[in-house]
Every structure is written in structure tokens, then in C-alpha cells.
């Protein structure tokens, strides 16, 4: 059996988080940006679950359920906003969101 290594899981979650963060900054399509945010949340979930492995507590796992619930609610709100924007503008590219500036 392979030994459980918290640090390796933490590294993996950090990599996922970074990929997500870079994606948010570089991608232009609203939905892909949102997917990258979900990736960041899932990186946090991975960090929580692997931390439960060393602390033997349940709090971390319970937090994961909360994060998943919040992510679902966020998706509902977010997609509604995307639909509204698409109906008004015909695009969800964040580059073309330039009415407000100054």
C-alpha cells in the first residue's frame, strides 16, 4: 500500500488552484472563466479532504459539502447572469464587456 502523503496532495491541489487562477485571468469566454473558478474551488476541496487524512477530524470533509453546495448555488446564479447577458448582447466574451469604464 502506498503511504498517504499530505504534502503531495497539497502540491496537487496547489497546481490545480494555479491552473484555475491563470485560466480566470487569461481566458476570454465567460463560461470558461467560470469553469476555472470551479476548478479553484475543487482544488480547495482536495486540500480539505487530504487535510482530514492527517487531522482525523470531520470538519474538513463537512466543509467540502458546504463548498459543493455553494458552488452549485453559484453556478445557478452565474448561468442565469450569462443567459441574461447573452440575450442582451449576443456574446458572453468578457472582452466585450466595456460599457463601464473610466
Amino acid at each position, binding site marked *: 500500500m502506498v503511504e498517504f502523503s499530505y504534502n503531495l496532495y497539497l502540491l496537487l491541489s496547489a497546481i490545480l488552484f494555479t491552473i484555475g*487562477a491563470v485560466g480566470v485571468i487569461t481566458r476570454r469566454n465567460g463560461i470558461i472563466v*467560470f469553469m476555472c*473558478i470551479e476548478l479553484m474551488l475543487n482544488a*480547495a476541496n482536495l486540500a480539505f479532504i487530504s487535510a482530514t487524512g492527517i*487531522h482525523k477530524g470531520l470538519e474538513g470533509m463537512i*466543509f467540502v459539502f458546504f463548498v459543493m453546495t*455553494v458552488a452549485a448555488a453559484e453556478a445557478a446564479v*452565474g448561468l442565469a*447572469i450569462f443567459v441574461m447577458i447573452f440575450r442582451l448582447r449576443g456574446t458572453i466574451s468578457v472582452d466585450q464587456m466595456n*460599457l463601464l469604464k473610466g
Partner: protein
Amino acid sequence: MDVKFPVDELILIAPEIILCGFGLLLLLIEVFLKTKSKSFLGILTLVSAGSALVFVLKLSSFSTDLFFGLYSLDSLGSLTKGLILVMLILVVIMSLRYVEREEVISGEYYPLLLFSTLGMMIMVSSKNLLTIFVGLELMSLSIYILVGLFRDNLKAAEASLKYFLLGAFASAFLVYGIALLYGSTGSLDIKGYLEVIAKGDTSTVLIIGVALIAVGFAFKIALVPFHMWTPDVYEGAPTSITAFMAAGVKSAAFVTFLRVFYTAFLPLIKQWGDILWLLAVITMSYANLTALVQQNIKRMLAYSSIAHAGYILVAFVTGEKILSSSIIYYLVAYTFMNVGAFSCVILMGRKGEENLDIDSYAGLSARHPFVAFCLTIFLLSLTGVPPLAGFMAKFYVFSTAIKAGYVWLAIIGVLNSVVAAYYYLRVIMYMYFRDPVKEIGRIDLSPSYILVSLICIFFLIYTGILPRELMLLAEGAVSVFF
């Protein structure tokens, strides 16, 4: 293991239960209402906010942990809850007319305001990061929708999208920070962090976790360089919601930020103190310099609100528990100044024509002396002119910095408020000394706006001349850190 649900503790969260119950009730009632009678919902919202406020006042003497430490009742939470509820009442009063004017057909407006307030109340009265996270998300998700509620308005839709994407981005940082803290300490309770840190056990992971949490909060309170969303969202959102965000979200997030950092991470002040010092300077300077060139008054007020976050941060970085009462005082004064100022901005507009550019304000004193007078009071208070509350707030914050030995920071702060005086006084100058350059038509002097303005003016003058009572309250609130 037999865990019994503590039923007797439910009465202690009566204000939250009231808001939640009324929020759900309003959603239900709205379905059966005719489209024209939305002000009935507003009245019900006022009733619920009022009764929640009564309960908050009744419960304000309690100080205890509830529901296995997931929730708590203390003086800091009670004072902030009271402030948030008063702010909600003011926003609802001005919404009564504003919603009618803008012909909002969606009845979700008031329930969402209630849910968002509920989120703020949950957020400020917990010592557990799980509860704080849930409260923060409840607040944010409701506001994402509120910003975009005027569906046919392109600007509002764009503001909603921007706020949503950046807000979700920020909460991802917050969650990851919490995950790292949990990983390095095994606790979600902020007192638990203090124990671990007091043992001298500070790993890199823990420090990164603290930094990520700070980033999450910095987004919510709009510190430079995490402020990009603020001017756009404040401009695009319905003005009543802008007031709600500027006053409510900022106060709630700042109090939570204060609670988390002053309870748990004060021993680490060497690590975060200098960074926040720098952020305070950048925030004040950048926001004030950018505000100088704004022609849109909502945008100007947005930059001014960023600058005010910088002033509050001046007191924050000192790490002096006893002096942090100045932060609470500032937040209270700031809330009333902003709600008042935005109520005047609403007054100036009409459906489809908001008259947001500063030119619309030229010569206002001759045509509408009352509006010009109200706005002048609010702008003077934002500038920090005695005897208004804004002056005492700035005075306390900067004297905190000097007492704690941050003299340079105080000097930079004072210089910044001098710069800020330029753009506040410019609007006053336009109102009193310029000839009108454009026809803005009749102003809708509805009692709902006037009432809000008068309450705010009364409060600003009262606490400006007699700051002692509020200061004692604020000192009582921060006594939770000892």
C-alpha cells in the same frame, strides 16, 4: 454519540430567524400580488427589519457561543448587526419610491435584500470559518442578482457579470486559504488558530493561508489592487443597491476581517502588518487620485469608498486591540454618509435618465436648495469637515495610527484627505457657484428620499458633535478581543 440539538438557543438567533422567515414569506406573497402593489412588500420588509432590530437590541447584552461554537453572540456582532439593520431600513425606505420609479417588475428585490442582510449578520457573528464562509456567500450571491435585477439595462447586466466573476474568484481564494489553514492547524475555529500560533508553530502553509484569506477579504472591502470591480459595479448597479453595497457589504466584510485577524492572527502581525501598511497607502493614494478625474458622480463615490477603506486600514494595521474601536466608529459614520449621498444621487434622476454627470449638479442650489443642502452635508462629512461625524471618524483613525507609532502612515492619510477634499468640494462648487448647463427637469422630491436624507443628516451631526456615546459603544464592541 448522542448529540442533542440545542433548542433553547434558537431564541438567541431570533433576528436571523425573523429575516429568513420574512424573506421566504415575501417570495411566497409576491406570487399572489398584482404587479402594481410592490410597495406592500417593501412595508413588510420594513416590519421584519424593524422587529429584527428590536431583537438585536434586546439580545445585545448577551455574550455566548451558540450551536457548538459555530455561531456566537457578542457585543461586536450585536453592534454590527444593529448597524446593518439600520442601513437596511434606510435602503428599503428609499427603495419604496425608487423601485416604483424604475418600474422593477421582479418582486425578488426585497426578499433578496433580506437574504443578503441575513448573510451579513451571519458573517459578522461567528468565530468559525465555516459559518463565516456560508454567510459571506449568502450575502454575495444575493447581491450578484440584485445588481443585475434591472434586466433590460445593459450596464446593470454588465456590472452583474463583472461582480459575479470577480466575487466568485475572490471567494475561491478565501476557500483555498481556509483549506490551507485547516491543513496546517486542524481547526476551523479562529480561536483554535490562536492556540497553534501561540505555540510558535507557524509553517509556510499557514502563512500562505493567512495571505489568501486576506486577499479574499480585500476583494470584498475593495482595497487596491483588488478593487477593479468596484467602480464598474457601483456605476452599473441600481443606485439603491450601490448604497447597500457601499455601506453594508463593506461594513460587514471589514468587521469580519477585523474579527478574524485580531482574534487569531495578531501574533503574526510582523508578517501581515507591513503588507497591509503598503496596501493602505496604495489604496488611499490611487483611489483619491483617480477620483479627481471622474465625471460620473457614482464612479466618484465608488473611488471615494475605496479611499475610505484605505483610511480604515490605517487603523487596522496598527494591531492595537483597544484602539480598533476607531474602525467601528468609522464604519458607522461611513455607512450614514454613503447612504445619504446615494439617496441624493437617486433624487437627481428619473426613469431612463439618471443625471449622473457632475454637470447636472451645476446651479442646483438655486433650483433645489434642499437637495443641494443635503448633498453638501454628506460631501462635507465625507471630506472630514467638523462638526460632522466624518471628521471625528478620521480624527480617531489617524490618532490611533499616531498613538501606535505609525506617524508616517497618519501623515500620508491626512495628505490624502486633502486631495480628496478637491473632488468632494468640486461638486459643492458646481452646485453653489456655477450656472446650470443642462436642463434636468423636475426633481421627484418623494418623502421616502427626504426621510432617508434627514435621518442621515441628523445622525451625522449628532454623532459629530457628541461622539462619546457611539465611541463608548464601539469600545464595548471591540472588548471581545480581550
